[in-house]
């Protein structure tokens, strides 16, 4: 039985999210301190379906953050995530006589340990299993950067389609998986495969389901051995490379394919979204569902992102809504209609929510502390409100005893509603 009551919440914390859609647009959604509802504030790019963004990765360090996006026309762009200026554009390097449309990019990762002198490294992986690591320098103003581009490329898998790839936070290992491709972990320094999963045995009816992974992520930040994968046969599986090759635990979730999984910072909570728009959180240690996120979500979920500082997650998909959820109450904080079906969402963690984002970026730590105090205050206020609410309800309750007929009851409900609404205002 789902919870039907709503928990009072103070709205969105100050966040900044970037969404990437099928028309090649990047839209910036912000929720500020003074305005607790998320709103679209900026749009970069011109609508053009051939420039559809397939994958994105953000290096959100405090100074000089970088954003990498992979487009359908097989160009990788490096942008400034603060204002959308293009630093560099890398035309397709790995084309060996193929059309870029036939072999679209599925995974992209921008390495965080790139030097501060403007050099950066990008890992891409295409559907047909061509992984490629490119490092180059980005000059701040000019667009030429592919000059000193060093490329390491390898084949992840010969047959089958790669559908998901993810790099662990420590950036030493990556996981790949797809249709007909078992989950496998690669060491990025040596470019070797270190572990491959084994498909689960036939079921009691003797039916074997071929492997078809649609999403994968690492469970912990620094542990490259634990991988969580979502499959097409609506299962969320946990693999432990140090234990066994078969899944340690697998959880069934609803009836449609899992399309996105994301890990929490605590190292055991997993968020999974499926292709009919259901989003739920799981405790992967026990394999139990913690609860599902209810919010009239009707289109397939393509991407989930966890905010590094605030307890919120963002989900987006082909119903063209960006939805921001509270983790604890699993309540919808904000939904933004962005007109296009969205492929990916990323949080910018260095956003403080002040009116001038550029100036506040210089000392985000201090700002955030202020932030925390404010939130605490508001919580206190809301608690006191709740108390008041209770008090009024009790008072009314006493009257209820005095009059015991239907009309009175109806009136009471109305009254209490009225009181409630007043106090919320």
């Amino acid at each position: 039985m789902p919870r039907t009551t709503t928990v009072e919440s103070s709205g969105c914390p100050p966040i900044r999210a970037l969404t990437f859609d099928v028309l090649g647009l990047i839209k910036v959604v912000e929720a500020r301190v003074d305005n607790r509802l998320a709103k679209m504030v900026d749009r970069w790019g011109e609508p053009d379906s051939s420039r559809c963004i397939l994958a994105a990765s953000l290096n959100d360090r405090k100074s000089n953050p970088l954003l990498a996006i992979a487009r359908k026309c097989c160009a990788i762009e490096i942008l400034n995530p603060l204002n959308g200026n293009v630093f560099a554009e890398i035309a397709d390097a790995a084309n060996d006589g193929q059309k870029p449309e036939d072999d679209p990019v599925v995974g992209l990762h921008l390495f965080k340990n790139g030097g501060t002198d403007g050099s950066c490294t990008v890992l891409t992986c295409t559907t047909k299993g061509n992984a490629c690591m490119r490092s180059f320098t980005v000059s701040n103003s000019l667009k030429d950067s592919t000059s000193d581009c060093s490329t390491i490329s390898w084949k992840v898998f010969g047959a089958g389609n790669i559908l998901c790839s993810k790099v662990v936070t420590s950036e030493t290992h990556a996981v790949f998986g797809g249709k007909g491709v078992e989950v496998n972990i690669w060491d990025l320094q040596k470019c070797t495969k270190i572990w491959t999963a084994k498909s689960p045995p036939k079921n009691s009816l003797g039916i074997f389901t071929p492997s078809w992974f649609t999403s994968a992520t690492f469970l912990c930040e620094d542990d490259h051995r634990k991988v969580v994968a979502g499959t097409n046969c609506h299962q969320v599986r946990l693999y432990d490379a140090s234990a066994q090759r078969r899944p340690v635990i697998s959880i069934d979730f609803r009836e449609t394919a899992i399309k996105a999984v994301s890990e929490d910072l605590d190292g055991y909570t997993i968020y999974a979204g499926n292709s009919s728009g259901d989003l739920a959180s799981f405790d992967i240690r026990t394999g139990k569902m913690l609860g599902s996120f209810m919010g009239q979500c009707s289109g397939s979920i393509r991407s989930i992102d966890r905010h590094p500082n605030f307890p919120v997650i963002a989900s987006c998909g082909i119903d063209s809504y960006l939805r921001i959820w509270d983790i604890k109450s699993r309540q919808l904080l904000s939904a933004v209609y962005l007109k296009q079906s969205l492929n990916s969402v990323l949080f910018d963690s260095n956003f403080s929510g002040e009116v001038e984002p550029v100036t506040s970026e210089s000392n985000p730590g201090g700002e955030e502390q202020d932030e925390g105090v404010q939130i605490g205050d508001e919580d206190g206020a809301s608690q006191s409100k709740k108390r008041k609410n209770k008090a009024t309800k009790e008072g009314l309750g006493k009257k209820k005893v005095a009059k015991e007929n239907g009309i009175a009851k109806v009136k009471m409900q109305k009254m209490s509603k009225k009181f409630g609404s007043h106090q919320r205002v």
Partner: protein
Amino acid sequence: MGFKRKKDSQDLGSEFDDDEKVKKMKKTVEKEKKEILPSMIKNKEKRSEVHAKLKIQKKLEKRKKIKARDAAEKRALELGEEPLPREIPRTIENTREHDETVCKAFDEELTAWNDADEFSSIYKCERTPKILFTTSRFNSTRGPAFISELCDVFPNSHYYKRGTYDLKKIVEYAKNKDFTSLIVVHTNRREPDALLIIGLPDGPTAHFKLSKLVLRKDIKNHGNPTKHDPELILNNFTTRLGLRVGRLIGSLLPQNPDLLGRRVVTFHNQRDFIFFRHHRYIYESKETKEATGSKKKEAKMIARLQECGPRFTMKLISLQHGTFDTKSGEYEWVHKPDMDTSRRRFFL
């Protein structure tokens, strides 16, 4: 109550007032009684009695109101004044809940998306619509009759027996044969009850519930359609989802109608139900006598309609991205019960 009255009657100077007070009190008591809704009465006979009374009362009041309004209008006309504008009745449609996905005209992103979506080649007349009709595994009587009538409605349509083929195989076959859409009529208990419209080669898959099917021969004074390309009317497809469904439906028919045929196919959306009608129309000059008594005859152009072809209602159940694939397909929109939060919330 009695106590109060006594107390009041002690006040000798205000006997008249006192009576009035009592009356007032009685009135308030009556009012409270009136507020008891018939649904609260547990005795059925009593309840129905009260309900009937209430209903009659309401009816009379309404009639009175209308009479008064008409009289006021007439008077205003006689005096040469402007009559008061009639009030617009509040309906579910015009009190619809606000929906931010309702498309606005001249939206740059929308036009860009429309230029790029799966049907754009049909709308640009690069491909001519060609439809493959098929059924569910078992069908009889009403199913084939319905399909044969649909084949009359949509030009360039072909019926293939379903046989025992998988739908995915049929999709592949239709793709190879350059079909632009595939329509599956699903029958249950010899009555068509669902419609699956698949855009090809990579268009979306829409699943509709089908109801209220009336075939041509059951329509009174029906006409028989000609082979001309029909005109298409799409009504009330306003939201983003509605527009997409509308474009899917629009891609079933040729974009340049044969106006000589005077044949119209209508898809009318009202409260998320899509009503299908198929008509022939004719312009006629009707000779009418002038009401003033002069025998001058005046030719007046009127349009007459004759319904032909089937009549049915569809409701969208799901819209899936890509061709038919229930296992791994991504849904653009699925109807879920928790979406029905209000009667005034519509999706198309």
